[in-house]
């Protein structure tokens, strides 16, 4: 049983560019959340997707957007990249919107130069 998988694992982008990160949830899970983890910090909640809709959002600008597909996989899009967007982006999935333990993927390391 595959856990949460994310792609790509590493990415280097230039300031001003746009990036798309992908996440496939653990089998049987239908809710996906995205987190940003800066070096030496704990993860910060970006948003949560359930039933293909954004259900909850953290304190991130509109440059951060997402999508969830009918198969529950999800994408995170970041526009107009800034140097400060360099971080490890984590996807977490769970079964059910409100309850159930969250399982994390290995993350995508984004470097903006």
């Amino acid at each position, binding site marked *: 049983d595959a856990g949460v998988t994310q792609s790509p694992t590493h990415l280097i982008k230039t300031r001003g560019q746009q990036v798309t990160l992908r996440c496939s949830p653990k089998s049987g899970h239908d809710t996906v959340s995205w987190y940003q983890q800066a070096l030496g910090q*704990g993860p910060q909640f970006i948003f949560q997707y359930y039933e293909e809709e954004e259900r909850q959002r953290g304190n991130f600008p509109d440059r951060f957007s997402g999508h969830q597909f009918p198969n529950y996989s999800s994408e995170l899009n970041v526009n107009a990249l800034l140097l400060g967007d360099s971080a490890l982006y*984590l996807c977490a999935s769970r079964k059910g919107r409100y309850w159930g333990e969250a399982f994390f993927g290995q993350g995508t390391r984004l470097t903006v130069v």
Partner: protein
Amino acid sequence: TQLLEQSPQFLSIQEGENLTVYCNSSSVFSSLQWYRQEPGEGPVLLVTVVTGGEVKKLKRLTFQFGDARKDSSLHITAAQTGDTGLYLCAGARGSGNTGKLIFGQGTTLQVKP
């Protein structure tokens, strides 16, 4: 404002020593989770505590949730080099687990042989 404060932020000990990591808040959480994260990987769930005063044991690891559900601790007995990593506490607020986890900044543990 950091809702969850972890202490200490860094800990370097010899193999065989005991240690305790603390996770404190002025807010009440409906549940609290502890994760362990290795460099370049996503957080791996260790335990979830839900009831105030709850104590859970996982081999040499003992987790406790405060009576008021505002704080938690992780105690490791006879630490091993394999325990090295970043330990994160994460809380869920509200009447249910809304999917948004609030993380502490993490405790980096180094166990030396």
